[in-house]
């Protein structure tokens, strides 16, 4: 098996001392991000891109890219572990992907079973993480081989599908989601055109020639936007933190949750692979499925362990599944993976089918580090969960100004212009205004990241067809992808018209 050899090489990269350290920092910060309500994985990852960029300045570019992405991915899946802690102890989900966990998790805590709930959440997350990684290892090579056969027309349609999926599922209003997508794409056209070298929308302002920096926009929209929101809507944590008690789960608990964990892992993985769906949706689905399958559905909502095990496994599996389209196709299916993709591009590493050929050390090093990171997380979350529970008490008085200071430091350290810092603050205000009025931000970032690639592939395809737009419908794969994109938009619309309640993804 070729994949095994590659994975073995990946472990050699991931087991280098500095990469182990980066993975550890990543999962540690990720857990903290997950525990803290108000800071989601998107803002956590965005905030840390410039920080990791300055931490890796001494390494050569390929190594720097590997180490950074190991850390950033650690934040992403680490947050899935941490999210359960506040759901169970405080009845306040740390992340939207842990909202369902509050239903049974908090009930268990009230009955004095918080320790088992936390332990099962950690074990479930671990199993799910490993399941999704094995699937990633098996699927990576075949999928990227398939994608290598894609021409520009197919790629354009594939990215269109990615945008349609995310815009179709994000937020309450599809119109608003599409507006954000298109606005993100428009912002990506600012700067020098990569094909012809013509300056677009720069108005002789020198800082605009390089285009709006992805990093500045992402940190502004997510990290600063959320800080501004937290300042304006002062939220109080007046809930009492439940006592944790015994952490080792009983045999019955383990037996009862084995099924839900297995089903949650598989379901979450498939939902995660689908673009646009993501961890929140995965956790909801798996909860509903467990309730339907259960012989005692009346127990759900009253503190049954299956109600914790299933959603927590599903959200972690989904975050692993979401790495597949990102790494093999170069299409991020969610806001967080879009940010990860932007980080890779910053290091001149283009995610997509060529990633496994051109930068096998980055791709396989990352995959191997996720195995290690999941083990670290299991250790962090079982015995040390009591320490993490303390993070909840971090006063926002200190946290919020420090996040602003870290954002400003990060952006200035990487860009070294005052313009970018001011742009950062402007996008922070913009992000707050938009997100608090139901304009989803994930599609905007996705548009910004995918914009240059969509445009290049569109123009390359049109060049080969002499400007005939029919090329996108004549190639069979491209046609299928476009039909899928159209369906993705029309089906939820149709269901809404029929009065059905469509599950939507609020944050991604």
């Amino acid at each position, binding site marked *: 098996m070729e994949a095994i050899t590659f994975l073995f090489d990946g472990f050699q990269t991931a087991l280098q001392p500095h990469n182990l350290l980066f993975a550890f920092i990543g999962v540690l910060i990720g857990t903290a991000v997950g525990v803290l309500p108000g800071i989601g994985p998107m803002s956590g990852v965005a905030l840390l891109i410039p920080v990791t960029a300055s931490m890796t300045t001494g390494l050569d570019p390929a190594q720097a890219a590997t180490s950074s992405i190991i850390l950033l991915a650690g934040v992403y899946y680490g947050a899935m572990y941490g999210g359960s802690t506040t759901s169970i102890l405080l009845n306040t989900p740390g992340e939207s992907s842990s909202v369902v966990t509050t239903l049974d998790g908090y009930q268990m805590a009230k009955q004095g079973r918080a320790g088992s709930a936390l332990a099962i959440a950690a074990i479930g997350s671990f199993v799910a993480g490993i399941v999704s990684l094995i699937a990633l290892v098996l699927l990576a090579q075949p999928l990227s081989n398939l994608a290598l056969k894609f021409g520009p027309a197919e790629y354009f349609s594939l990215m269109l599908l990615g945008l349609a999926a995310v815009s179709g599922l994000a937020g309450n209003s599809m119109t608003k989601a599409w507006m954000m997508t298109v606005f993100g794409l428009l912002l990506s056209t600012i700067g020098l055109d990569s094909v*012809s070298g013509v300056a677009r929308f720069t108005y002789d302002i020198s800082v605009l020639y390089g285009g709006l920096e992805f990093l500045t926009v992402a940190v502004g929209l997510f990290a600063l936007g959320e800080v501004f929101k937290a300042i*304006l809507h002062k939220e109080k944590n007046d809930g009492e933190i439940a006592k944790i008690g015994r952490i080792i789960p009983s045999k019955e608990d383990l037996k009862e949750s084995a099924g839900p964990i297995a089903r949650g892992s598989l379901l979450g993985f498939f939902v995660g692979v689908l673009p646009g769906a993501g961890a929140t949706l995965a956790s909801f689905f798996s909860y509903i499925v467990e309730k339907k399958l259960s012989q005692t559905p009346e127990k759900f909502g009253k503190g049954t362990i299956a109600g914790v095990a299933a959603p927590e496994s599903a959200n972690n599996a989904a975050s692993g599944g979401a790495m597949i389209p990102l790494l093999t196709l170069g299409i991020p299916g969610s806001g967080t993976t879009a940010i990860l993709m932007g980080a890779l591009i910053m290091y001149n590493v283009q995610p997509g089918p060529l990633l496994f050929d051109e930068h096998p050390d980055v791709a396989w090093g990352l995959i191997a580090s996720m195995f290690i990171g999941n083990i670290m997380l299991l250790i962090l979350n079982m015995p040390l969960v009591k320490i993490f529970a303390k993070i909840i008490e971090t006063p926002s008085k200190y946290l919020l100004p420090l996040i602003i200071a870290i954002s400003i430091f990060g952006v200035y350290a990487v860009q070294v212009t005052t313009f970018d810092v001011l742009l950062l603050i402007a996008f922070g205000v913009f992000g707050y205004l938009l997100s608090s*009025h139901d304009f989803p931000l994930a599609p905007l970032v996705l548009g910004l990241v995918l914009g240059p690639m969509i445009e290049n592939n569109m123009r390359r395809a049109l060049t080969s067809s002499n400007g005939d737009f029919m090329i996108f419908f004549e190639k069979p794969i491209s046609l299928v992808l476009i039909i899928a994109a159209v369906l993705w938009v029309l089906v939820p619309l149709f269901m809404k018209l029929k009065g059905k309640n469509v599950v939507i993804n609020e944050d991604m």
Partner: protein
Amino acid sequence: MSKTFDRFAAVAFLAIGVLFMLESLRISKSAYGSAVGPNVFPFLLGLVLALLSIKLLLETLRYDVANTSRRELQYKKFFVILISSILYAMLLEHVGYIITTFLFLIIGFQTIQRGDIWKSIIISACFSFGVYVVYVKLLQGTLPSWPVWFS
């Protein structure tokens, strides 16, 4: 959902879309190495954005009466912090990283919650010095250190 904000946003995005369309007409159409010039993509996007904005504007006509459960927002704190971050950004290169960061953090901490001034001073000092020492001395990065008129 706020009807006023959505209307305002729809008009603003409509303007942005139209502006991008008009401005992309001014981009040279030379299509060297490509059958499609650099103006086509932004023009199409501007058009789509304008159409979507009109759709949103029409949707706002059908909104139900806005719910009046408005929450008290901490405008004063927000503006103090916003303005101090803008000043922080503007002064960063002139006054240097350590002083501006220190001052910004103290203002930030005290704005969100008065009191415990010594703790604020210690945390601010640790952060501003710590970041500077780690980043500039250890990692050899560049940050404006002290005011230009110091040296």
